[in-house]
């Protein structure tokens, strides 16, 4: 069905707010970044000089940039794998529950509604080395928790804080995927002598693979690009560079280090990565898998 409007202007008028937001907060800055990437600017923004590809050359010869890339990969895959494993486990449990199913499912969706910065602050409080309940409990258990000093602990903290929110999303998709697996397949496997564990790994899990792959891409994109708030609220990229992901580095170099040209060049690289991941994501959303 198509809706026709009396005037040609109205549809554009209705689209205008969205177009404006996109233009002001996305297209314009993107264009600015693209331009800026080829200039060197003084710290006060008073003068600038065209330097061609120099910002990019600096970037790709900077060991810290590669360090940050590695950090991002470790961080992103940890978030994706931890988040998806836990979500799958919870979904399998929830799928089995008969009584109070809705209550469990609703509770598990709540984290998703919490703003990333709030989630970050929450975990920051819980893990604060001097007064956070979890940090104190860890200390009593013999773990010397101080993510301000220990880079690995800082990484664990940002992974936990970022994963926590994403579990809800993963959970919903896995649950839907599980419920789409025909019951008769599980029953046939039971008659075929497969233990519940084996049924899961040889029948259910393979049938979930489209969901799993979709979630892997979504989670990687999330960990790459949408965890700035969490990192800023918990570790601010530290200690040292140990939790400085590529996105955090753009902010850190540009607004803290005031290297606007270098920061812009990093933004351009990130834009290219976003484009690539979007293509992958769409390719796989289109691929349908049949169950029968």
């Amino acid at each position, binding site marked *: 069905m198509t809706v026709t409007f009396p005037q040609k202007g109205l549809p554009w008028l209705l689209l205008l707010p969205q177009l404006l937001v996109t233009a002001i907060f996305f297209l314009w800055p993107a264009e600015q970044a693209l331009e800026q990437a080829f200039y060197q600017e003084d710290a006060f923004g008073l003068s600038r000089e065209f330097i061609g590809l120099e910002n990019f050359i600096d970037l790709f010869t900077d060991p810290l940039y590669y360090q940050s890339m590695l950090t991002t990969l470790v961080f992103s895959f940890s978030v994706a794998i931890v988040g998806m494993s836990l979500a799958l486990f919870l979904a399998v449990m929830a799928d089995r529950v008969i009584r109070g199913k809705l209550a469990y499912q609703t509770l598990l969706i709540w984290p998703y509604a919490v703003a990333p910065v709030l989630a970050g602050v929450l975990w920051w409080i819980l893990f604060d080395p001097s007064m956070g309940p979890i940090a104190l409990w860890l200390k009593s258990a013999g773990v010397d928790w101080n993510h301000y000093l220990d880079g690995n602990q800082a990484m664990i903290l940002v992974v936990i804080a970022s994963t926590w929110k994403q579990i809800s999303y993963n959970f919903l998709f896995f649950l839907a995927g599980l419920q789409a697996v025909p019951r008769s397949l599980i*029953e046939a496997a039971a008659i075929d002598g497969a233990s519940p564990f084996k049924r899961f790994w040889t029948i259910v899990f393979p049938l979930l693979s489209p969901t799993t792959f979709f979630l892997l891409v979504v989670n990687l994109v999330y960990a790459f690009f949408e965890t700035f708030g969490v990192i800023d609220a918990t570790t601010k990229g530290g200690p040292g560079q140990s939790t400085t992901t590529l996105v955090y580095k753009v902010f850190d170099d540009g607004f803290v280090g005031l290297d606007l040209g270098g920061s812009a060049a990093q933004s351009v690289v990130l834009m290219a990565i976003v484009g690539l991941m979007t293509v992958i994501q769409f390719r796989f959303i289109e691929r349908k898998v049949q169950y029968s």
Partner: protein
Amino acid sequence: MTDVILEKVGKTYPNGYQAIPSVDLSIEEGEFIVLVGPSGCGKSTLLRMVAGLESISTGELRIRGERMNEKEPAERDIAMVFQNYALYPHMSVYDNMAYGLKNRGIAKNLIEEKVSDVAKMLGLTELLQRKPRQLSGGQRQRVAMGRAMVRDPKVFLFDEPLSNLDAKLRVQMRVEIRQLQRKLGTTTLYVTHDQVEAMTLADRLVVLNKGKAEQIGTPMDLYNKPATPFVAAFIGSPSMNLIDATLTEQGVKISEALTLPLSHQHRGDIVWGIRPEHLEVSDEQNGDFALRIQAVESLGAETLIHGKIETESANGESMVVRLSGPHLPDVNSLMWLTAPMSHWHLFDAKTQQRL
């Protein structure tokens, strides 16, 4: 030897719905038993209790003398063919058939041998490397059967295995299933709502009605001596003509004007029945009653004539007559019929039992 025994087996679902009050059935080794009844009468429930996919609420199930109630499906040595086939979509035909054997830790070369034997028997050899979605409905059905056969179980269970196939393929597979079962000699419990399928496949039939076994017997037992009006109507196509009547000293009183003479000691309300194929065309002198013809269905080999018994009052009872060969009587004309007494079926209207 008795292979499978259901003793007062009943099922009440967790929501409190009693799907099966109590069923008794003993199945001989190698026998082909068909559970038949209308949709929702509890056929699948009963079959799934035998498979172990539903718990047994009351009573006992024994296979080869051993109590099965608490056993897992895998421990019952049964194989099941599902209505939607339930093939594992991500596995090849070979892996679908081998899965049950692999789970039982059978040696790889033995698995290969068994799968290829069964594949040959079912004409699946060329298809072993395909995925289920690359198969036609009939081929999927065969794979589902192959998966059941390859394990050489004590009992085959089928839940409406042919209902997703077109009419022609259904007839072909029906014949094939029967031949395979004879050849393998495996005890079989087969569920269907299709009475033709039931009649052609079964050694013995169980007619289920609202979770109760109305009658158990050979197809011919059920055809010749249906125990209740339900069985009488369910078995045979078109259905038996069943008419509410009263048994008096004079005989079967169908209406004020029409009484068919009979001496019988029973008195009271009854259901009188005669199959469409047992009515005979007659004339005004010799006929028992006349039918006002309402519709004629010519099928070539046979003709079905629908009409109403002609009486003074406007609403006579509906009847179907089945005549062999082509006939073309006029609609609205009268047709005189005789109903030979040897083909009558009498049921007590209150107890619904055969008299």
